[in-house]
Each structure stands twice: as structure tokens, then as C-alpha cells.
């Protein structure tokens, strides 16, 4: 994409943030507004088109409509959005076009219409197959509706992913494992399974802190339980035929992986459009992360008068680039791409990193893998499951 409105080099990955929800879930820290009316949603779609700009860009490999609840827009507006995208960049049949869906906001006909509009992958916010869990999380759908949505999506031939959350208060590892079996049983080809995080700014976090059951800043309440859940998730899903290709992402086959997310984790440039959307831009000025402010009204207002929406950005230093590559790489089965690091951050930094990584091999946290034995240039630092579970900590140690 190439967009004069906010500048930046062409990228082949596009993210559109749709900041509308029927109701905010208690645990969610993503930016969204509740109870949007039709008019507001129409204005949003028009403004996305404006923000995309008029210059033609290269063919897109992935498009991701995230939120918020993008399915809340309805098939017609989703079609308009994708038309606007196609007007500027070729979207081939091999392009992965993902739509995040809340089961309550879309039915089979809606999904069918979205498919006609170009959507070929849906990510369904199931979160749980247990009604009491859904209620506690503040979800608007129930377990039955969730199953129905998965069935509808699969029957339409859409690539289908579901989101699940574990580590709810009172939840047992055993009950969670049953949910995973249910999830696998409903036929989905991709699962994103997250530990519940107590994100500052969410109602859940406030309740917890006020009840005095979590320490301030304590992201995870029962750390030791979190460990058991994490390993149980990976082990159970592997038995069920899924590969954990990232900390929280599981795919039945290689082609079922989220190509959009993989691009992000592989440190490829991407363009984000919509309020609160982030972009990663690589151009003559260097490596930059930019992000629109999480303010829908200001974003609309700016684009409607032909201005750039309010945004912030930062230019990444070689050390920061390395930190990002290491931190993201250790989260993924693919590991850290040292060749790319070498190009961005220099030989010395990579040698130092390799030295530290070698020490970690002994502890069984990472492995060093080259395309062929002795081929130092192609070596990647690949985390074991044990290492993936400690990715944040290892990233610090590798970049020390």
C-alpha cells in the first residue's frame, strides 16, 4: 500500500482496526466504542477509504479486519471496505483476508455475504465453550451460539480460527483440557489460546485490584497455575493434531497458520488503518513504528477535513530493532532470523547474541538451527517449548 495521507513505503500486509463493539468485554484492553449507530459506521468506512489514500500499491498478501468487532459493521460495509482496498491494491485469490467475528453479531447469511465480498478466513471470538465462563468474561454470546458460528463458517468453506481464554478464576486445568477437546472436535483448523491477562485499564483489572486479590501491576494472578495451563495447552493441542507455532497460536497444518500474524512476528512491514491502528514502516528514513491515536472522533474529524489523523511514531535504533526481532522471534517456532538481524543491527551485535544463545542451549531453552550443519550464516535461534514459555525473560538475557 502506498498512502499519501500518512506516508510510508509500500507494504503487502494491511490491518484495518474497526473500533466498534456491542459491549466492551471485561478483560479487553483493545480500543473500541460501544453502541455505534449506522451513521457513525458509514462515516467510519468512508474515512478508512480516505486514509487508504489514492495511490496504487503492490499486491496484498494479507488483509486483516480486527477490532473491536468488525463483524458488527455488517456484510455490506465490509464489502465496501474491501472494495476500497481493491481499488488501490491488487487482492489476488491467494491473499489471506481475515475477518474477526463475534458469534452474536453475524449469522450464516452474513458470513456468506462476507465471503462473497472477499473474506476467506474468519477468526471467531468463542473464548469458551462454557456458559458460566462466557458470562464471567462479559461476552454477549453463549456456548451454543459459538458452536453454531464455527459450524456455519466451516460449512461455507471459510478458513476458521477460534479464540479461547484460559486461567479464569476457579477454572481447573482438567476443565480447560476438556474445552480444548471440544474446540478441536468442532472442526476448526486454527486456535488462538490465551491466558487471561489482567490488563490495566480494564474493568476486570479494576475489580481485582479493588477487591485486593491482585497486587498492583500484577499481570498474572496465579503464576504457578499459569505455568500448568500453558504447558497443558501445548501438550493437549499437540495430541489433538495442532502445532503450537507461536506462544498462543495453534494450527492443524502449516497452511492453516495466520499468515498475517506471522508477517508481524517476522518483523515484516505492515500498514495499519483506523483509530488506534499501528503500522511498521521501513523506508529511506529507517525503521519506524507509527500509530493512530485511540480516538475515533478525532480520527474521523481529521480525515473528513482532508487532514492526517492524529498519530505518533518512533524511529527504532539498531538496539531496539534487535530487541524486537529477538522478543518476537522467541515467541515463534521459526525462531530468530539472525541473517536479518545481521543486516539491520551489525555483525558484532549478532555475534554477542549468538554467544549468549549458545549458553542457553545447554539449559534446553533454545536450539541453534542452520540450513545445513556448519552453515553459520543461516543459523536461527529457535526456542524449545520450554524456551517459548520463557520468551520474555530469554529476550532480556539475549539483549543484555
Amino acid at each position, binding site marked *: 500500500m502506498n498512502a499519501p495521507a500518512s506516508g510510508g513505503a509500500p507494504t503487502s500486509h494491511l*490491518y484495518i*482496526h474497526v473500533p466498534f463493539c456491542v459491549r466492551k468485554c471485561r478483560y479487553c484492553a*483493545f480500543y473500541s466504542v460501544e453502541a455505534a449507530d449506522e451513521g457513525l459506521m458509514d462515516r467510519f468506512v468512508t474515512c478508512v477509504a480516505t486514509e487508504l489514500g489514492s495511490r496504487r500499491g503492490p499486491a496484498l498478501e494479507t488483509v486483516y479486519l*480486527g477490532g473491536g468487532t468488525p463483524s458488527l459493521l455488517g456484510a455490506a460495509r465490509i464489502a465496501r471496505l474491501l472494495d476500497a482496498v481493491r481499488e488501490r491494491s491488487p487482492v489476488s485469490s491467494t491473499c489471506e483476508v481475515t475477518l474477526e467475528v463475534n458469534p452474536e453479531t453475524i449469522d450464516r447469511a452474513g458470513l456468506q455475504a462476507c465471503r462473497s465480498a472477499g473474506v476467506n478466513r474468519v477468526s471467531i471470538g468463542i473464548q469458551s465453550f462454557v456458559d458460566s465462563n462466557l458470562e464471567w468474561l462479559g461476552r454477549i454470546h453463549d456456548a451454543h451460539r459459538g458452536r453454531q458460528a464455527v459450524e456455519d463458517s466451516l460449512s461455507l468453506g471459510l478458513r476458521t480460527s477460534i479464540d479461547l481464554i484460559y486461567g479464569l478464576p476457579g477454572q481447573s486445568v482438567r476443565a480447560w483440557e476438556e474445552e480444548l477437546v471440544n474446540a478441536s472436535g468442532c472442526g476448526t483448523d486454527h486456535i488462538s489460546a*490465551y*491466558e*487471561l*491477562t489482567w490488563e490495566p485499564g480494564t474493568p476486570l483489572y479494576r475489580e481485582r485490584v479493588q477487591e485486593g486479590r491482585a497486587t498492583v501491576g500484577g499481570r498474572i494472578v496465579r*503464576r*504457578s497455575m*499459569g*505455568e500448568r495451563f*500453558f*504447558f497443558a495447552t501445548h501438550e493437549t493441542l499437540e495430541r489433538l493434531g495442532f502445532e503450537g507455532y507461536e*506462544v*498462543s497460536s495453534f494450527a492443524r497444518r502449516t497452511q492453516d497458520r495466520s499468515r498475517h*500474524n506471522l508477517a*508481524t*512476528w517476522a518483523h515484516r512491514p*505492515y500498514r*495499519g488503518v483506523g483509530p*488506534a*491502528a*499501528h503500522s*511498521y514502516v521501513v523506508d529511506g528514513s529507517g525503521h519506524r*513504528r507509527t*500509530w493512530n491515536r485511540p480516538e475515533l472522533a478525532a480520527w474521523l474529524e481529521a480525515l473528513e477535513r482532508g487532514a492526517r489523523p492524529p498519530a505518533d511514531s*518512533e524511529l527504532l535504533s539498531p538496539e*531496539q530493532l534487535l*530487541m*524486537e526481532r529477538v*522478543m*518476537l522471534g522467541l*515467541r515463534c517456532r521459526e525462531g530468530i532470523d539472525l541473517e536479518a538481524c545481521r543486516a539491520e543491527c551489525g555483525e558484532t551485535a549478532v555475534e554477542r547474541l549468538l554467544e549468549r544463545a549458545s549458553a542457553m542451549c545447554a*539449559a534446553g*531453552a533454545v536450539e541453534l538451527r542452520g540450513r545445513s550443519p556448519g552453515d553459520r550464516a543461516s543459523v536461527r535461534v529457535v526456542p524449545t517449548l*520450554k524456551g*517459548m*514459555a*520463557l*520468551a*520474555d*525473560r530469554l*529476550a*532480556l538475557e539475549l*539483549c*543484555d
Partner: protein
Amino acid sequence: MERIRNFSIIAHIDHGKTSLSDCILRRTGAIPPRETRALLLDSMDLERERGITIKSSAVTMDHVGPDGEKYLLNLIDTPGHVDFSYEVSRALAGCEGAVLVIDASQGVQAQTLANMYKAMELDLEIIPVVNKIDLPNLDIDRVLRQIKEELGLDPAGAILCSAKTGAGIDQVLDAIVTRVPPPRGRVENPLKALIFDSHYDPYRGAIVYVRVVEGSVRAGDRLRVMSTGRTALVEEVGHFRLKNRPMARISAGEVGYIISGIKAVGETPIGDTITSDEQPADGPLPGFVEAKPVVFSSVYPVNTDDFEELSDALAKLALNDASLHYQKESSSALGTGYRVGFLGLLHAEITQERLEREYNLSLFVTAPSVQYRITMKGGEVRLIDNPAHYPDPGEIAGAEELYIKASMIMPDEYLGAVMKLCMDRRGTNLRHSYVSPGRVDLMVEIPLAEVIFDFYDCLKSLTRGYGSFDYEILEFRPGQLVKLDIKVNGEAVDTLSMLLHRDRAEGRARAICLKLKEEIPRHQFRIAIQGAIGGKIIARETVSAVRKDVTAKCYGGDITRKRKLLEKQKEGKKRMRSFGQVNIPQKAFFAVLRRHEE
């Protein structure tokens, strides 16, 4: 000399000593009416804020007595806290009378009694004054009864006043003139001047506050400090008015200052006697004791780069505080700092506050500890306050610790609880007596080490704030001393070693291990935290290994935030100290060593 009156105002803390002084100064015109700065005598911000006089001071006033004659009144203000009881006694030694202030709502308290006894020992005329009579709902009769029963003074001689409204102030002034005797002493005798304080002035050096007891002194004389034999040329003498007022000479009976070639206040110790070098007195005035620190803390700059600033600040404070003793020390965890000796807990607290406030330093001050007297098998005696200097236990013949005599006055319903507290703290020789119906004075001999930790806080909470406390230092007595080491994965952490009584070791070790368990982040391996005496483990905690440390979600919009979090943690790691493979955050040391439990 017949028309000089030297007096002091003494009181329990917060009973209004300083405001009464201020009121008297205004009434006599020593402070001009338009001077708005409140509480003139407490010149440090800290003194005004805390309502505690830290240093002594003095002021000379003119007053026309009831007989129509002009009198010279010298008010010597005394420090207001138990840590400074020696300084108080020296200031009182410079007077013939004392105004004993009693808060009309609080009545007689421990320091009221302690200060009165000091004044009585020095044979001062005591004028009881009931202050704050403007407060509502007072039982003045109860206070007057206490004056009779607890102080043994004639309540008919008590004056009711309010420093706030000015009521009764004239009666206080008249009583000072008519009841306090004039000073005695002969101007012809060789000079004997009692040092009751000295202040450091950057331009003039030490300004020595004296009460001239015998003889006189003038500029150009050569003085001699009797305890040290140090001599110096007198540059200026004078009286204390709103500002120092130079005089031709100051003579027997008078209160004033001497400026000489002496620069450091440490060379003019409180209680010492100044005489004339040419015509020395036959002996010093009685009662001089060298002030010795009894409470010790280590002081480190939180930012290790600030060590030079800390050194400068301590040197400057010591210029005006002869009782401040300090010595450089270093710790593997906290860097370079000082081991500082204080007269007591308040002295330690005030010093820390002044360092932080006046010198803008961010400091870490360890929990206070005491000094032990250790006799080696060879007979050598060592005073040790630092665990690092603790000798091989096999070489030690015996150890002793300092005891104090504490006096606590409280309503008798709390006696049982406070006695239990004292016994828990190894108190001995408990005695109590009723100072008046319903109120007891509990006296106990107790190791200083047991009092410096949180004893005063416990006393206050057990007695719902009604218990008051005073103490005096007794002597060294035998005690079972051990050195407690804290080990992390087998390696002793020097900064956390401490000397303490054997009976206290296990409890303390457990508390420290538990605290460290909370503060040391989990590593990828198990960490054993142990408390040990020699080779014997007396407490143990384990920090389990971390198996998971990864954020659940990290999508395009999360990367910047996540990276910043890691960068912050990387910064935090710099403030860790490594012991073997274990990284211990600096705040873990703070949590274990800090004075107050949170």
C-alpha cells in the same frame, strides 16, 4: 548581678514549650511586634515542622519587674527529646530557675517528670505553668492535683496561661523575677564558663553558647577548653538579642556567646568548661560527659554516584553537630556509604531528614543497631557495631550489650500489656509505682537493642497513645551475642549480616528469609534462602524456579508497548546485585534493612 534572671523552659514534647517561649519574647519586646515568623527559637525548618527543638539556643530580654526595676532575663531553650537529655541537663545547669510547662489537656507526662528531676538535681527554682488553658473541656483541677501528687509541687504556685491568647504571661514573667534567685559567682575569680551548646557559622567558626559562672571574658583574652586543653584567642563576646550583640565583656551570672579561633563545634563539647589560659580556674564545672553515639545505622546514597555529595553533606552537618560520628564503609550490595553513630533514634531520623532535605540526597538508611562490647580470650576489649568486624566466635571470651533504664507513665489499665511488652523485650527489674490514682510509672532495665527497633511504636499503640517514655543509659551488661548470616544459594550476603541476641536470631532470620522470598524475583532455577549462625541453619525459604514468563498476546499493536516494558526491565536489571547466579534487586535490600515495616 542582682537583676539577672537565668531560666529555662522545660516540658514534655508538644506541651507548648516553644510557643510559650515565643510568647514571652514578644511580650518583653525581644521580638518586634511586626516580626511575623512564628517560633523564633526553632530556626530550622525541621524544628518548626516537627515541633521539636533540636539545638539549644538562648535569648536575652529586658523586663521591668513588679518592683519597677529593670531586669535582664536570659532564656535558655532546651532540646525537646529524650535523645538529648544530656544536652538538656547542661542547658539547665546554666540556669537558676525553670518554667515547667504542662499541657492543660495532657497533664503530667514522662518527660515532665524526667525534666523536673533534672531541674531539681541542679537545685533550680521550679515554676509550674499550666499551658493551653484556652482549649475547651479542660479539667484544670485534675492537672493541679497531678502537680501536687505526681510532681510534689505546691499547686498554689502554679500559673495558668495560654501562649496562644497571651493570658497569664505577665504572671509568668513576674514569677521569674520574684521567685528565681539571682545568679551567684564572683567576677574577680578566674573564668569558668559552662558550654551549653555551640553553633557553626561559616564565616566565624564555632559560636560557643556559654553561661559565665565565675570571672569574665573579653575579646583579646586567650581561652582554654578544659577537657582538651585547646586554647584560642577570643575574637568577640556578646549577648543574644534578636541578633548577636557584641559586648565589651561577659561576666559571672551572664549568658552569652564567645567567638574565638576555634572553628569546629566538636572542639567545644557541650558541658565542658572554658577558662582563661593566662589565669586558669582550679578545676572544671561538674557534670561534663563526652557524648557517645549509642545507635548506629549505615547510610548509602540510593544512586551510587552520589557518594561524594553524601560525604560533603555529612561533613557540613558534623560542623554543627558534634555528636555525629561517621566512618566510611562499603557493601557489595549497596556500594560505598558511611556507618554513622547517633545519640538516639530521633537524632538518627533528624540527621537523615536533614541530609535528604537540605542537601537534596536520596538515601538508604539501614535499620538501627547498637554497639557490643566484646572481650577477647586474650583480654582485649573491642567495641563493635558492624557485623563485618565481628571476630571469630572461638576467640571471644564474652560479649556485653548496653542497657537503659526506661520510665513509662500510663493509665494503669495498660500496665499489664506494657509489662508484657517489656518482658518480651528482655526487660528486667521491672518496678512500678502510682504517681497518682490511676496513673503508674513503670520502670524497667532493658537492652537498648530491644528499644531501638519499634518499641516506642508498640508502647504508643498498646496504650492508645497515652503512654509516655523517657530513658537514660545505664551500662554494659553480659548478653548472648550471635552473628546472623543470610545466605542465598549458599553464598553469604555480607550486607544482610547482623549482630543480635541469640534469642532474637531465629525470629529475625525467619522474617528476613520470608521478606527476601517476596522480593527476589524467580529465576530459571530454585533459590535457597537461609539464615545461619556459623554453620547452623536456623531459617529457610525457597524461591521456586520460573517455568513461564511470556506475554499471552503480542500483535502488531502490542509490539511497541511490549518492547518498552522489556527495556524498562533491562534498566531494572542494572539495579540488581549478583550473588553467585542469583540477581537480588536493590529494593530487596531496602525491604529487609529499612527501619519501618510497611
